[in-house]
């Protein structure tokens, strides 16, 4: 065969033959499946519908689902190649236990026995809260719901949080403070319907490309992009505001001041539906043109132009992502955004809302059902009524439910350092790459008595540290549902079997429940995700996030929005708060007086650059999936550092030079320099997907006081040339 190829008799014609797919027509025969399985994309929170093509038990291709209203058949490059990671060589195949520093493959029974006995031993010795649990935004809602019960009611620790705290926690905390509850009021269609869209710290062209098609619809829409970096999204803008890093609050207050002074506010709405206007206005009035221009680096004329546009817009959307959330003032920035929407009464109307665009595919699912920042159904820990209601639904005593939230993600890490948490269970997340200030985290994990990591991939920097490694099924291998950024619930289906002995997380949770003897109490009669979903429907009934009218059967016909009360099957979105009634005690939204504060670690003479971190379209988070997909990895094979040509000239650095980036906490070595006008003088940008150039060796341990979200987007660094070889 090899000789035939060398001679040129064989041209691998078989492999490259074309075939015909009944539905999709002429295509490479290797991509013609036997059957299609409808599901939802497992990367980001846009929530695109897709079909997995299966042949001989393998996923051979994917297609966007033309009937899915989110994406109407389109997918981003990650989605288009999503089937390719399922059989990557770094899939976790067998349960592993570390003995004498080396992993040994063991049976599931042995792994789970060791895990529970060691967890229970730690809890017996140091108290139930000595166990910490870090989960994710990547599981299905059914798994989040089950996991929440298992952790809080089964293992009885409240120190449970998800990597969603690294992501959209500030949006959650901000919504709660302004509107009384989490839950984005608007929908994606608002992007198409709005006459003004303001994107703040949101690079949708790179991170949510499928949302871009909703922008720029009519000539009647003006797109304003606020970002310190000239992103791909900035290039789409009618007006680009290149703010200085971390100056959004000054900008928002400046706009608010103009709106108030020029009486472009909705006095009647404010009077009927809000509290706290005067206190907010008093703070905002101090943001005069000089102050705002100095902080933001923008001219007052530019700001005024946008303020007037907003003041006269019929349907303004303000949307944000990590540029806002990844900050010690993330929650407050969200409140400032909500202030802006509230003064114009533009909340929950068609094309008019403050919209948080979420990160992970099912971050929303864990927000609603997950028992972390709130109890399932957005119930408040502090509320006796909420606790009694939930206990009643579950048939347990109200005293069994925690009266306050346990520690948030970064506080769990710090509690480990204080030796208060001795055992940690990490599920479907890779903190060694994604958590800020790597050294601190590595030190913390080294102090644990036992670390269990449950993941679809091994080795990852995190699974390598585990004492026990549990192999999990991933997207494409299990059933459930995801809820996207706009509250749209979409079905997730199994197309193929998980490789090796990997099991769906749901099954792992059930086996653990059995092991610790809580299966009958918490999950009586449950055999699959559908049972969890049915219970979740009952538990969410009547809540803001009401799933009671959503059934698996109805979801197979297409996605459904919450709130969806029982008895109705309404395909359209119901926007929140359109009637001006909010989820606060008195039904009024709250204005917050927000003061701008400087970033926690501004550049200095020694560390003269502000480091911004972020993403590229080809990769997902820490790259455990996308870097296994060769097509994507070749497009973006390694990290790079963006630096303005003026700075490069000053440092005598040239394009493609290899440099080290150094902060007070650590050093990232051998990064390729991209000299570009994409970033301003004094700013550098490093993507965070690359474990070998881990941006989080540089970032700092500074967290938002409300959401506990890390300040990923700003820290002070210096850039050094690599000594030449």
């Amino acid at each position, binding site marked *: 065969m090899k000789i035939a190829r060398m001679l*040129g*008799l064989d*041209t691998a*014609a078989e*492999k*490259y033959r074309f075939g015909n797919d009944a539905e999709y027509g*002429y*295509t*490479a*025969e*290797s*991509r013609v499946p036997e059957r299609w399985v409808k599901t939802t994309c497992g990367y980001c929170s846009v929530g695109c519908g897709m079909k997995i093509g299966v042949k001989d038990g393998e996923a051979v*291709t994917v297609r966007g689902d033309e009937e899915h209203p989110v994406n*109407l058949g*389109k997918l*981003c*490059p990650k989605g*288009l*190649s999503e089937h390719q990671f399922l059989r990557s060589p770094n899939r976790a195949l067998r349960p592993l236990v570390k003995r004498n520093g080396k992993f040994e493959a063991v049976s599931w029974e042995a792994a789970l026995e060791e895990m529970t006995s060691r967890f229970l031993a730690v809890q017996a010795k140091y108290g139930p809260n000595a166990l910490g649990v870090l989960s994710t935004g990547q599981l299905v809602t059914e798994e989040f719901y089950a996991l929440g019960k298992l952790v809080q009611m089964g293992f009885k620790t409240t120190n449970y949080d998800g990597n969603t705290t690294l992501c959209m926690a500030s949006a959650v905390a901000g919504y709660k403070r302004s509107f009384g509850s989490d839950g984005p009021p608007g929908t994606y*269609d608002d992007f*198409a*319907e709005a006459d003004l869209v303001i994107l703040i710290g949101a690079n949708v*062209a790179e991170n949510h*490309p*499928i949302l*871009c*098609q*909703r922008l720029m619809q009519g000539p009647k829409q003006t797109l304003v992009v606020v970002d310190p970096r*000239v992103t*791909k*999204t900035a*290039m789409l803008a009618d007006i680009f505001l*290149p703010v200085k890093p971390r100056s959004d609050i000054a900008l928002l207050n400046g706009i608010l001041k103009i709106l108030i002074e020029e009486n472009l506010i909705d006095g009647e*709405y404010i009077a*009927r539906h809000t509290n706290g206007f005067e206190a907010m206005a008093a703070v905002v009035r101090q943001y005069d043109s000089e102050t705002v221009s100095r902080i933001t680096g923008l001219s007052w004329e530019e700001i005024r132009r946008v303020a007037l546009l907003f003041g006269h817009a019929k349907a303004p959307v303000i949307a944000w992502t990590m540029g806002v959330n990844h900050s010690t003032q993330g929650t407050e920035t969200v409140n400032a955004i909500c202030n802006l929407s509230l003064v114009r*009464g533009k909340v929950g*109307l*068609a094309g008019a809302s403050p919209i948080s665009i979420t990160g992970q595919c099912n971050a929303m699912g864990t927000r609603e059902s997950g028992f972390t920042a709130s109890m399932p159904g957005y119930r408040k820990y502090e509320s006796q009524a909420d606790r009694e209601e939930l206990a009643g639904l579950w048939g347990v005593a109200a005293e069994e439910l925690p009266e306050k939230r346990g520690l948030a993600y970064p506080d769990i890490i710090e509690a480990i350092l204080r030796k208060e948490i001795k055992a940690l269970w990490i599920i479907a997340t890779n903190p060694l790459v994604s958590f800020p200030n790597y050294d601190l985290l590595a030190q913390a994990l080294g102090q644990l008595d036992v670390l269990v990591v449950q993941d679809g991939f091994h080795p990852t920097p995190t699974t390598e540290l585990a004492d026990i490694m549990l192999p999990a099924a991933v997207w494409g291998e299990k059933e459930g549902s995801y809820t996207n950024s706009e509250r749209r619930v979409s079905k997730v289906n199994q197309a193929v079997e998980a490789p090796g002995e990997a099991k769906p997380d749901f099954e792992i949770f059930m086996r653990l429940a059995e092991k610790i003897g809580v299966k009958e109490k918490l999950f009586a009669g449950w055999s699959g995700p559908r049972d969890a979903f049915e219970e979740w429907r009952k538990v969410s009934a009547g809540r803001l996030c009401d799933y009671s009218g959503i059934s698996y059967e109805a979801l197979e016909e297409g996605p459904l929005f919450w709130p969806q009360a029982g008895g109705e099957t309404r395909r*359209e*979105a*119901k*926007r929140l708060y359109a*009637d*001006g009634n909010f989820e606060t005690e008195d039904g009024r939204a709250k204005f917050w007086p927000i003061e701008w504060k400087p970033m926690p670690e501004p550049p200095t003479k020694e560390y003269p650059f502000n480091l911004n971190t972020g993403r590229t379209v080809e990769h997902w988070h820490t790259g455990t999936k996308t870097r296994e997909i060769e*097509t994507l*990895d*070749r*497009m*973006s*094979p*390694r990290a*790079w550092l963006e630096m303005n040509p003026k700075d490069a000239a000053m440092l005598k650095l*040239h*394009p*493609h030079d290899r440099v080290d980036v150094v902060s007070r906490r650590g050093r990232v070595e051998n990064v390729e320099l*991209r000299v*570009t*006008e*994409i*970033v301003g003088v004094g700013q550098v940008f490093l993507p965070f997907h690359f474990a070998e150039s881990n941006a989080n060796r540089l970032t700092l341990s500074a967290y938002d006081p409300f959401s506990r979200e890390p300040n990923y987007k700003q820290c002070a660094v210096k850039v050094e040339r690599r000594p030449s070889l």
Partner: protein
Amino acid sequence: MSLPLLEEARTGSERYMLAPVADPRALMPGRKPEAGEQYRFHFDMNQCIGCKCCEVACNEQNGNSAEIQWRRVGEIEAGAYPFTQRLHLSMGCNHCVDAACLTGCPVDAYTKDGLTGLVLHSADACIGCQYCTWNCPYGVPQFNEERGVVGKCDMCHGRLEQGREPACVNACPQGAIAVEIVNIAEWVGTRAMEANAPGMPPAEATMSTTRITPPKNARGEFRKGDYHRVRPEAAHWPLVFFLTLTQLAWGVLTFGRLPWLGLGLLALGMVASVAHLGRPIHAMRAMKMWRRSWLSREVVLFSGYAAGAGFLLVTDQLRVGLGLLGAVAVYASARIYMVPARPSWQTWRTAVEFWLTGLLAGAMVTGSPRLALGVALAQAAMQIEKLVWLRGAGEFELRQSARLLMEDFRWVFAARLILLAGVFLPLEWALVAVAAGEMIGRYLFFVTVVPRNMASTFSGMERAA
């Protein structure tokens, strides 16, 4: 409760739900080309967000592995922060009116389809000589190592026949890529003006048919995303041997009395050339297109020359005639490389450098050290003159070639020059030194050419280190 300023929320009617996505039918011409017309791509730079969906979808459609991109996305940048312009290009095959891939192909593997005007390639006919990959100024045809043949974008010809849009058009979330019908004569009349865009090679050379809508309000000088990155091209070792050995052989056979040596070199060179093919077994097919392709002519001429050279073992009468034939054959070799898509090859210097290699060997075997020294100095002067020309050239690709010679390959270039001093050695050693030097010269010839191409991205397409 009445809320005068509060509009009733329009709860998602269908007209809003369906508004966002471009209707794929609008991206297709809706009819077939008529006489004098052909299909073409349209690409709208204003719509493209550089997401690379088209690239991934193309590879899925065609079952290609990651190292092959029949459609590629590039990036260009202009302006100064914050008024930076950052734009993307996406390109499949441009289905040119004067397709250079087709003209050069020695085996007629390419056809310009009569009905659609698409430039189609037959993997069955292809022998994997890769000449088209040098001829195309857009880098469109790509050699597939696994198959031993070239492949390229055919606008998803099979899908068009089914009335479906190409995979890239289908995948683009922005509706930036479309298929249109163009009147060929009118298009040529405008010199393919609308196919030009920043970051693209001049369209006139091959009459690219892709219409590009340039960015609104574009200002400033655009710079390719890969502007500062120069990557050496493939060395093509079999061709390094083929060129050097056949040229040396021509010199030895024409000017010396060492027919066995000359014939030996010639035979080795010709065997080496076959090793360059993806499908050596079909080497004979390469003569097919001698009326059109310089590669066919080279094969025909060298085959004839080799046959004739055998007579030198028995008679000297044919020497002058054969010498002239050999000179023409070497010229045919040079002409293969003198193509617009490879600017540092497209110069008289290529032919002169090739001839000088032969003349150098010839001068040495005549036994005249002064003659040999003279030719060696001429070759050295040629090399230095070429470098000066490259450095001072206006064209980006030429300056990049100079950069490769002076930076990445400066020691190799120096060695190539120093080895010319080998003419001072005794003949046997001199021949070895000069052969080695000329071989390094051919190696540099291949690795330091910077082809014309569309702008790439900053990271380009390469394996992680």
